[in-house]
């Protein structure tokens, strides 16, 4: 079960493969609320973007606050790379170019281990790159990203109400930025990990069993301002 919050984290999973959608949904449902779609364009539709226009529909006037157009709260987008029409990369770009959506962390999945592809996605703003088939143990790495969005969304909501109404209470809410660091700390991770300790054991078990299980690629020469460690304990691929 998810941590004791008002609502579970909501993940939008995008994949044109029926099998992989079923799998990722089952994987994610253990801890999160999941929506699956089979294309990038459907993903954008779900997120409230239509075509190249950022206005979700004609009745909404152009607004100053960027979060108004998001119809549903999505805490993370996980998308396949190779899809007909709009690729996962195209979707990533569109999300990052949108002022209302750019804060949503995006994770790319691919069955192919292509270093240049991985770099391109990370440089475009993807948080992680997972090799398929995605496993339960991979999902642990999503936790910090989702917590960050949730906190950020709460912050923005409070800041907006602060702009509308002079409210001294919201000023104390603005102190929440210190909680930003919490997702990185062990206490929150432990809460999540309680429901996920079993898969972690499996991960180690598999590492022992399968020597050629290539999960991730280590890329040298990533942009230096990425201080967050991205690849923990990953084998290089020859």
């Amino acid at each position: 079960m998810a941590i004791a919050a008002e609502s579970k984290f909501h993940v939008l999973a995008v994949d044109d493969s029926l099998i992989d959608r079923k799998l990722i949904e089952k994987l994610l449902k253990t801890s999160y609320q999941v929506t699956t779609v089979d294309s990038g364009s459907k993903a954008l539709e779900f997120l409230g973007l239509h075509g190249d226009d950022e206005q979700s529909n004609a009745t909404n006037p152009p607004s100053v606050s960027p979060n108004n157009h998001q119809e549903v709260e999505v805490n993370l987008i996980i998308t396949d790379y190779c899809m007909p029409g709009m690729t996962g990369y195209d979707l990533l770009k569109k999300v990052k170019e949108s002022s209302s959506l750019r804060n949503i962390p995006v994770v790319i999945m691919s069955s192919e281990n292509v270093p240049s592809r991985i770099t391109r996605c990370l440089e475009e703003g993807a948080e992680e790159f997972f090799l398929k088939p995605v496993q339960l143990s991979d999902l642990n790495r999503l936790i910090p990203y989702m917590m960050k969005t949730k906190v950020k969304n709460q912050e923005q909501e409070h800041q907006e109400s602060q702009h509308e109404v002079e409210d001294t209470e919201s000023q104390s809410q603005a102190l929440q930025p210190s909680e930003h660091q919490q997702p990185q700390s062990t206490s929150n991770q432990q809460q999540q990990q309680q429901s996920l300790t079993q898969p972690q054991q499996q991960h180690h078990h598999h590492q022992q069993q399968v020597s050629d299980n290539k999960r991730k690629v280590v890329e040298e020469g990533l942009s230096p301002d990425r201080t967050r460690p991205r690849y923990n304990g990953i084998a290089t691929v020859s």
Partner: protein
Amino acid sequence: MERNHFHRQLALTRQSLFDQGFLDEQFIQLEELQDDANPNFVEEVVTLYYRDSARLIHNIEQELEKSNLDFNKLDSYMHQFKGSSSSIGAKKVKAECSLFREYCRTGNGEGCMRSFQQLKKEYSTLKKKLEAYFQVEQVGQVHPPHSKLKSFVV
């Protein structure tokens, strides 16, 4: 007593699928996702796989019948097929997919056709084995220990 024997046999059957290289650790991942809420998850996914990939097989077959082979198209179909096969842990099938894709890359039509024949063989062999496995597994779930089906148990 009978139940223990049955479960041992089932475990051995299952293990042989791994030992003989039909399945890899991804199948175990599927098993780990199976729970009381989804007691037939693995079988559901496998059934979905065979239904979904039948379409791809048909498309590939049609392509291979053409006089001028479109290797890009073939590779694209096979990429999808390989992906699904990988997702259920179909090890031998996946290997054949890779081989086929190599032939596509080198524009080797003969190679494609040969490896496709082999792929279809592996594909249907696995299907039969998994169907049998699920059937027997269900027998164990449904029937009580001292069942008259003991003669049925392999």
